């Protein structure tokens, strides 16, 4: 139920009181409300739940933490887990 999927904001426009974006998920695009992430710009990735972006994915933070995971993979002895 709390499923949220990251997608890339292609373009955004103001429609009435809301800001609505075209967001790309893999091969498909969907309309997404940006009201809860006012700082988001085209090119950003957002986490989308029931048609609303609920947060902006921070690329620097994602890269930093993923790099640590990659390092761990290199450092850990290659054994089958119990």
């Amino acid at each position, binding site marked *: *139920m*709390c*499923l949220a999927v990251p997608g890339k904001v292609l373009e955004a426009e103001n429609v009435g009181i809301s800001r609505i974006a075209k967001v790309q*998920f*893999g091969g498909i695009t969907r309309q997404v409300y940006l009201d*809860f992430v006012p700082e988001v710009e085209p090119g950003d990735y957002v*986490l989308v739940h029931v*048609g609303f972006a609920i947060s902006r994915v921070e690329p620097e933070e994602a890269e930093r933490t993923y790099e640590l*995971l990659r390092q761990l993979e290199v450092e850990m002895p290659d*054994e089958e887990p119990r």
Partner: protein
Amino acid sequence: MKYLDEYRDAGIARALATRIKGRVTRPWTLMEICGGQTHTIMRYGLPELLPPEIELVHGPGCPVCVTPLEIVDRAIEIASRPGVIFVSYGDMLRVPGSRTVKAGGGDIRIAYSPVEAVKIARENPGRAVVFFGIGFETTAPANAMAVWQASREGLTNFSMLISHVLVPPAMRLILGSPVNRVQGFIAPGHVCAVMGYQEYEALSAEFRVPIVVGGFEPVDLLESIAMLVDQLEDGRAGLENQYSRSVTRTGSATARKLMDEVFEVSDRQWRGIGPIAGSGYKLREAYAAFDAERVFGAGEIHVEEPAECIAALVMQGLKKPVDCPAFGTRCTPEKPLGASMVSSEGACAAYYAYRRHGVPA
């Protein structure tokens, strides 16, 4: 897809499992709250990757599961009235009350987003459009927006049947129990994306329990478990954020402002668990005209749950689905006896779907 595929990497998952194995010196019982995380854990067979000292128990974070049968029956009753268009998230329509909402008859439509229900109301001024507004804090801003839009446009034919629940009061119930077994929690990442994690810092400090805000992919969950094990083995108890790519300490201020405008905290009944004080939302008085229970009258409905069901114990981490004599025999996703079997995100249903993973059939 970016930010998904890399967190399903088998090599990193194995490295994390090896790291956890190297740190563990004694048994620890950990709970993930969110049903989406339960589903990932069972789907990817994570318990099999972990050392036997780590026991994962599964929390009550499946909103479809904990929606009381009385509200499901209320939904069926409203949906079957002439002139009503009843709109719901798809997974809620399959839950059997006395029967399922779908089988109850009427004009029933599935929506991906609650704003679609507002659109249907706009386009059908002669019909009463009712949206089944369920969910945790992740979904609350979207449901609040639907009510707010309808209010702003002056729609008089839109209302919402609400069963909104909150995570921290349920964690408090589990932690405050004299028989609590949970020694560390994975907090629900998408709830925290909206709410931030200050409430969880307070819980961690009050109960001296490690809490890690975790994501939803297998690597996210294994890293969260590794962070919890590090804290437990070091004798620390604090709040840490594994899901930092998407969760900040304060969450979305605009989402919370809108939720606060439309909703107020109320007591809620949790299916399988019972009443929990201050554990949900209802519409504020200013939005009473959009409350389906008021619009359609709230007669007393009482539904008896099968006494055999141990969902309450499962959802508080005191029992595993396989401890139940009815599991997989008298209780299946097609004919569920209780809360944790009714949705694919319930612990019992997840064990049933993926029980090849180290779960005795």
